[in-house]
């Protein structure tokens, strides 16, 4: 089970209303390489991996949900005071027509989230390689978002998230090595 913590993993400071930036950040909210995809992918893979790597998948999945909340906070703060005209100028007229000021799991171009973004292969090495790729793609997306951001508070939080992708990628790489070592030991004895 999960227990809600009434705090963010890391503070999200937004300087001004900026729906355009919110739209870009939606790529990491409901996009193919985003946090929702990451959280759901790892949470679902954890049932069928060897015991030694369950913790990594469980704990990274849990952290991804806290990243998702940080992104939601960014999008919410960047759009909550936006007029319909400002939403339209930011390319969010379609979003506004469908969702108003609500958030939705979609990418920067309004394509709704789909589980076809994620896989569970039932093969731990195949799954972990997908996870490493997912972290690297997310890291790259955060870099592009940092390049697009002109809000210093937001950039700070995006940098934190980019660094977390690096750490997660490293932990998944170590998990692959742990499984390979175990496999090789079984061959010897």
């Amino acid at each position, binding site marked *: 089970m999960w*227990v*809600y*913590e*009434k*705090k*963010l*993993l*890391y*503070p*999200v400071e937004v300087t001004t209303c900026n729906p355009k930036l919110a739209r870009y950040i939606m790529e990491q909210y409901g996009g193919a390489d985003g946090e929702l995809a990451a959280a759901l992918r790892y949470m679902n893979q954890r049932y069928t991996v060897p015991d030694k790597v369950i*913790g*990594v998948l469980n*704990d*990274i999945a849990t*952290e991804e949900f806290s990243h998702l*909340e940080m992104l*939601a*906070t960014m999008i*919410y*703060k960047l759009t909550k005071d936006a007029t319909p005209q400002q939403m339209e100028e930011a390319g969010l007229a379609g979003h506004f027509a469908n969702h108003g000021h609500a958030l939705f799991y979609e990418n920067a171009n309004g394509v709704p989230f789909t589980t076809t973004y994620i896989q569970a292969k039932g093969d731990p090495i195949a799954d972990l390689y997908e996870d490493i790729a997912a972290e690297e793609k997310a890291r790259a997306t955060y870099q592009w978002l940092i390049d697009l951001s002109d809000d210093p508070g937001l950039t700070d939080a995006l940098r934190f998230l980019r660094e977390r992708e690096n*750490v*997660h990628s490293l*932990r998944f790489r*170590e*998990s692959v090595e*742990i499984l390979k070592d175990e496999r090789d030991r079984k061959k010897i004895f």
Partner: protein
Amino acid sequence: MNEFEEERLMMQRVQEADFVVVELTLYTNTHPNDEEALDQWREAIKEAARLRRQYENRYGPLSLYSIPSEQAIEVGWRWNQPPWPWQR
């Protein structure tokens, strides 16, 4: 420092301490024999619990696993009360 800034500072300390636990938990997941890291991890959990207690005594529980302090009850703390994290 006013009341608002004080609360933010204490919240930040909780966030920092909790983050150390998150990071060391992930590290020790893949380095189960690193005794130094395991020591740091246990210490980090203690420190995070200490700072959380300090915060919660004053401002009320951050989760429903903490017992509301008398001080928090006196000032009218309720779980279903803003600000939620995205409203801060």
